[in-house]
């Protein structure tokens, strides 16, 4: 069971990043809430990569349109546009990607996705024992932009490399902490079982 849980936990942690740390903390401080944590865990399990990507797609991003349209696109979630060619405007990422695929815009990378900023993030990740603070939907947005807006990213290979490094560092941290946690859990469980056995005896 432990091995299975370990595996699932790790896979989940890879998807949602720092939220797992919160779950882990709650379990560590109060082992009685094990069941509840598993319900969280089930909920997280439902958050597939696609779903998280979908949620991240609502993040606003700057695009430089290549077309002009004075009429805004009216959507339930809000208006998009109007567009003036060459003048940046904010649109959801999913819109930006759609426009990009039609060659209707250039996507302006978020500032944190510039190489210098990624280097800082990587350094921060290396310095901290815990997980460093990352922008919201960091990996999802990076993934979408690297996939669909390669030509708008300066030195895209270096950017990808740094993102991968950040991912690997966090992965290693989570893996280590999860293993430590589970081993501690096992010890606790064993101790309880032993105590119960004594009491029973």
């Amino acid at each position, binding site marked *: 069971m432990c091995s299975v849980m370990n595996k699932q936990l790790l896979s989940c942690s890879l998807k949602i990043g720092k939220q797992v740390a919160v779950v882990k903390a709650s379990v560590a401080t109060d082992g009685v809430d094990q069941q509840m944590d598993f319900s969280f865990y089930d909920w997280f399990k439902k958050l597939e990569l696609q779903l998280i990507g979908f949620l991240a797609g609502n993040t606003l991003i700057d695009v430089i349109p290549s077309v002009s349209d004075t009429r805004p696109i009216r959507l339930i979630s809000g208006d998009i546009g109007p567009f003036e060619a*060459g*003048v940046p405007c904010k649109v959801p990422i999913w819109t930006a990607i759609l426009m990009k695929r039609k060659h209707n815009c*250039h996507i*302006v990378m978020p500032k944190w996705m510039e190489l210098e900023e990624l280097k800082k993030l990587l350094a921060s990740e290396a310095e901290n024992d815990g997980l460093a603070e990352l922008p919201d939907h960091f990996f999802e947005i990076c993934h979408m932009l690297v996939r669909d807006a390669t030509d708008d990213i300066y030195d895209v290979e270096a950017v990808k490399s740094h993102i991968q490094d950040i991912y690997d560092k966090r992965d290693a941290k989570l893996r280590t902490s999860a293993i430590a946690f589970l081993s501690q859990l096992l010890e606790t469980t064993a101790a309880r079982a032993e105590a119960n056995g004594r009491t029973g005896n």
Partner: protein
Amino acid sequence: MSFTNIKDLENLGIQKICIDSSGTDKEFVYVCDSENKVLKFDKASLVSEKKPTIIEISDATTSSIAWHGDKICFGYRKVDFLVGSEQQLVGLVKKGNFDADEIAGPLEFQMEVTAVDVNEETVVAGSSDYAVKCTNLKDPDAEIKTRSLDAEILCVKLDPRNEYVAVSTVDGNVTIINIDSFSVDHTLTNVFPKFESIDVSRARIQMSWSKDGKWLFIPSEGCVKSFLRRRWEESGLYRLKNHENVNFSITTTSQCGKYLAASSMDNQIAIWDSEELDLLTSQQFKRNAPGTTIITDIEFSPFSTRQLIIADSNKGICMFTAFEESASTDIAEEKKHSLDVEDSDDDSIILNRTSRKKENLFDDEAMDDDEETRMSSDIGAIKKQYNFDNPDIGALEEFGFNVGQPDTHQMIQSNLPSTSTDLMQSAFSEPAAPRKMVIPERFICNSTPADSEVAQRFLKYNRFGTIRSYVNEVQKISTIDIEFHDKSIHGDIHIDNFEINYELADISMKVVALASVENRKKEKELDKIEDDVEDLGTNEPPKEKKGTSILHVIPVQAFDGQRWTMTLPRGDGCIDVLCSNTQVVILTKKRNIRVFTIGGIQRQIFTHFAPILTATCFDDRIAIASVVGSEFYEQKKTPQWRFEICEYSMDQKSWYKKSRTQGTTGAVSRVDVPVETGEQLDWVAYSSQGKLAVMDSAYNVHVLSAPGFWVPIFQGSTVLRGVSDSLFPVGLTDKEFRYIYCRGSRTPVMNGVNAPTTVAWKVPFCQPESLRTDMEHTLFIKELALADTILEKNGRCSTTETAALNSAIVKLFAWFAKANSDGLAAEVASLAATIKPIQMLCNYASKLKKVALAEKVAEIGRQMTESNDDRTGGEDEIRPTKRIALATRKVRKAPSPVPEDQDSEDGGERNQEDIHSRYNTSLDVSMSSQPVQSLERLAKNPFAKGAEGSSEKEPGTQTSLSIFDQLETVPVDQRKRAREVEPTVSSNPTARKQAKLKFGSNSADEHKKKFEKTTKSVAEIEKENEAESPSCVEKPVKKRFSIENVKGARQKVKSSYCTNFIFVPGPHMEELVGF
């Protein structure tokens, strides 16, 4: 660089040189040793066999001496053999009189005086007993201030500003002591390596201040450190190559303040530019004499600014010529020296070298580079010889020369009797060379500066698109990429640029223009080919040589738009290319401006009258910026220029109709350009609406408004985050400015996406965080917009902008009215361009129960109407017929509560006004748009003064009663009556509703009764006003009132003292106010 013959001093050991620090005496130098001798040198005794004057001090001197003006202070020991006591004193002598009786002793120490310094009023000295003492020389009763430090004193140095004294001690620290309080202001620790005690083999750590006292120079290990005043932070290091581990011992600054000299313990002498930290010269001081030779002191020679006096521990003194001078100059100097009998100033002799014939002074090589500059002096040549040809150092000012100022020596010469005509002629033979200042370099707006080392650059980046140039000389690839921001205009265009090498470009909505500059190499090749053809044996007259500057135009939205190319004449190559939606413009070397149509027809060609700095164009207008006049200086030393923009209007259909003889300037207009102090013009462009805009090098953007003044709309300094950051302007619209923020560079990045930042126009009003300022800002912007529409004679836009302006006025009025700032509100009301908003404002003031404000606004309205009347009456010759409304007006004239005696006085005047107001056409327009009342209920001139008159007095006269006066005077009951008599005929629901508020009654008696009933004392009204109105300091609270509120307000008005006011809601008042 050379040393003079070393002269022997009297004694071995530490020698201290002193010159007059006030700069008054430039004839003598004193040298104090550690025995009992003070030697007085003049120039001759230093360089020739002449003996110096030897002054013996009993009983012993201590190698410490300082001189300022007529005061010389020195440390000495006085022994009383009878008593057996020994005194360590600081002696003070005046005017060089070293007689024992004349030596005063202002300071006394317990141990040997090791350092002393003096200035105009203060003498300070340090001793081996760790004490520093100071006293004021001007005040005989001044107390002696003492401060004890932690180690033996090496050097004391008074600040030129007489605020601090710097004290170096053997423990490696430098203490800054405030002279006034004589307290330690700051301690610089471990500035130099510490040692045990003062000895000739140890560094003497002789500090020096810069001339202005801004920096303190302290010798240290491997360098001389400079410390910034007040902060006392290390601000720079003066290093000497291969001397990283050698201790510097002595520092001194030149009297001009430009140079810092230092000597090290291994006898290396170095001179730096004190401001630039550049090493100018260094030389090893060597002696073949037996014994240990260590430089114990250096000073800049008072005889010559290019020489140093060096004293060593081995009884030697000599002069070191840091910068060589030609022999002929020396001769001339000697001549002049002989001429200057008493007032001779050797420095001024050197200064005067600028006015001498220079041909014989230098070799040709030195002159080649020097003769074309204003630094054409021997010093420049000398420095050139020694590879100190830094242009910043070549100026004569570096040597203490006052370039551009009257030559002091010539002035002295002119005052002297003419002893020798030849000498005078030689002195005045050649005037000082005029200064040459190069005007700012030509640049191309919205482009990256050309740089041969840069592979990619923007030939143009504007609001239409970008044109990039990519060059790879290794692979012999050169391309131009043309991209429109709006891809629907045209797709990307890629051109091979290797052959022609276009370097200039512009892009507009309808055309792209590329141009190449002249190329000498290509011209030679062309010439060669043509010569070969001519040699074939043709007798035709020689053809005009073909140029190499080519214009290539790509129409993108033109009928049958074919690309076309034009070769410019040789010698008149292109220097800039511009294009708009209607024309292509070429600016050439000969300052010619060639205008082409988009299709390629050559149109106008004319010559610009001044050097072209930059240019831009919009539709049929061309703006060329130039520098006007020569440079000028404000307080800063940096030259400034006046910039001017000349605008040519090149309407292709009617440009020839604009004659300059018809009282105008024709198709040319000129306007000065604003730039910040010390800044230059950086950008000129037209907005999308055709407004001229400029940006200076401090990133201040100004727009030329329709009235003709430049409005600052953007201050780049507020957005710059780093010193190396910059802003690259992209374009301007009627409300926004767009730029690219360049981090760490002057130009946008070539790789990646440049995202322009858009900012709204922001005029730098005071207190920008205030909502009031925001509204004032809006008002100003609206006025500018209205001014533009007036200039363009755009009626439709003008109406819109007028409405927007009125809206801004109403909002600001409401703000002030609610804030109880009636005076400001009245000022705002007076800003209304039309009468239309006045009634709204009056109503609003009435609603707020501000009687005085309502009256004031009504008065403003009346004045405005009168002025309109006067204008109309004067201008209109054909007067319109009388309106029908006038007849009805007569019947429904409201009785006035004003006493009748006033009416009789105003009767005649009122008649006159009525006549004018009868023909008031402008009022018809303004009032017809009032939905407040139906037309027939209105007076034809609601703001006329005659409103106060009674209709009963002159029933036959066309009484013009102001609507505001009616509002103030008609009782409520009468309004009801009037409604019964005159039912509203208007179908407009608003008007119908407002008709209920109709005022006026035919019955004067009724009115009188009501009036008596309703008029209260002014005191009561004011009292109630105070009770109900909010506090003056209270900020207006946004409140949205509905029609119920309005009705409630009406009821309140009816039932309260304010019955003489009626609130008549104006058109969309609530919407305009926004409450």
